[in-house]
């Protein structure tokens, strides 16, 4: 087996070394675990009287999809939305629908944008998160809550500011997932 890039500095950062290789299970599981655990955040110490926390599971999904386009399959929105629905308090099925629509929508936007950089990613994420919050609010109002779009403005602004920070967290997790943890025999 060719040791690709071992001799060149700065490249082949994630190739295998002597007796150590990245683990495929870790590499595939980290994004899924990240998004699923972010859905658990309502269990956090914040007991909110108003919607204040941005939808972190959705933001992580958008982040992983924008930063690593091929890694989450196109149908990943459905199971991750299901896990989010169990904890988020939205009507059951709204997460499945909205996460799946977001993944399909991002696939279409991918082909439409000509340049991709930090600002384009942030803009796309803002638009998608805004649409998600609006639709989720309408669905929640349909299920018995109050319809008052002004309620989600603080949440949307917080999500807008927080997104680059989340992409940094995703970058750290990306390094983690390719860490050479497997000991070759």
């Amino acid at each position, binding site marked *: 087996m060719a040791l690709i890039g071992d001799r060149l500095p700065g490249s082949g950062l994630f190739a295998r070394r002597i007796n150590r290789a990245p683990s495929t299970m870790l590499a595939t599981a980290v994004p899924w675990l990240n998004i699923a655990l972010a859905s658990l955040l309502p269990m956090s110490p914040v*007991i909110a*009287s108003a919607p204040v*926390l941005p939808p972190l599971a959705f933001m992580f999904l958008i982040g992983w999809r924008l930063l690593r386009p091929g890694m989450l399959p196109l149908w990943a929105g459905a199971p991750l939305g299901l896990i989010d*629905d169990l904890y988020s308090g939205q009507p059951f099925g709204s997460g499945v629908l909205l996460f799946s629509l977001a993944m399909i929508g991002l696939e279409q936007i991918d082909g439409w944008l000509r340049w991709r950089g930090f600002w384009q990613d942030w803009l796309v994420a803002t638009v998608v998160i805004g649409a998600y919050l609006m639709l989720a609010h309408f669905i929640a109002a349909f299920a*018995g809550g109050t319809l008052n779009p002004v309620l989600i403005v603080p949440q949307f602004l917080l999500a807008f500011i927080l997104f680059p920070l989340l992409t940094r967290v995703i970058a750290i997790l990306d390094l983690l997932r390719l860490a050479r943890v497997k000991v070759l025999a």
Partner: protein
Amino acid sequence: MAPPQNRPGLSRTGFSKKAQFGLFTSYVAAISGAALGLVLLIVSLLNPTTFAFARNAAADAAEPAGQISATTRTGGKSVIDVISGYIEAGSKNARLREELAIARSRLVEAAAVESENRRLKALLGVRETDGKPVAAARLIGSTSASTRRFALISAGRRDGVREGQPVRSATGLVGRVLEAGNRTARVLLITDGASVVPVRRVKGDIAGFAQGQSDGTLVIRLIDLGINPLKKGDVLVTSGSGGLYRPNVPVATIANVTRDGGIARIISDPAASEFVVIEPIWQPITELRASDAPQAE
């Protein structure tokens, strides 16, 4: 064959049939996932309790994490309280001692009035469910990212909690139980849009309904429409009409007065409550004693 810019998918996958088929199946899977989501959503909008079993199972599974976060919340809050208590400690101390003395004597008066009340009700033969709580629990989570206001408590069916039971903290009403799992239960907070609590002002017979607005305030709609007698600062308690909520539990204080009622701020902030108490469903049962009836005739 058409050039790639006239067949958009081609530029992404190339001419490989295998890659094209792979992209096609992934689209099929994604769209059927979205369709499944739509079906689940319609089912759960038509019948909200359909998927309660899944939510309860998930909440039961995540309960230990919620308990840990609840203890850190109350622990962290007390540290902040201790530090902020140092600001203006001297003058605040003197003022608080005075208020505490007055409050203690008022409490003694209230206890005396309550026992007199109980004695008079017994004389009249009024029978009510006694207010002994069903269970005590911690608030271990809430739907902080959704516009629906639900909270999760760490008591469930095995502690005797059932749907509909009101939940209160030491300072006031918090909500009522919506779904009860095995170890956890979901509580509809009074600030949610679907929660309507019959209230009355502490002084006088001004009755109304308090409906949540999902932003921490309640909108009060009075039953008698006429001159609005409410003033800013009035305290509203549950009136007990219609059952479910025990009467005389503090609910909210008026912040703004509007044409047919007011906007009120809730007294018991769920974020500040450490423990909540789940009470049985209150039923107003009034019966005259059977032995009195023949004597009256």
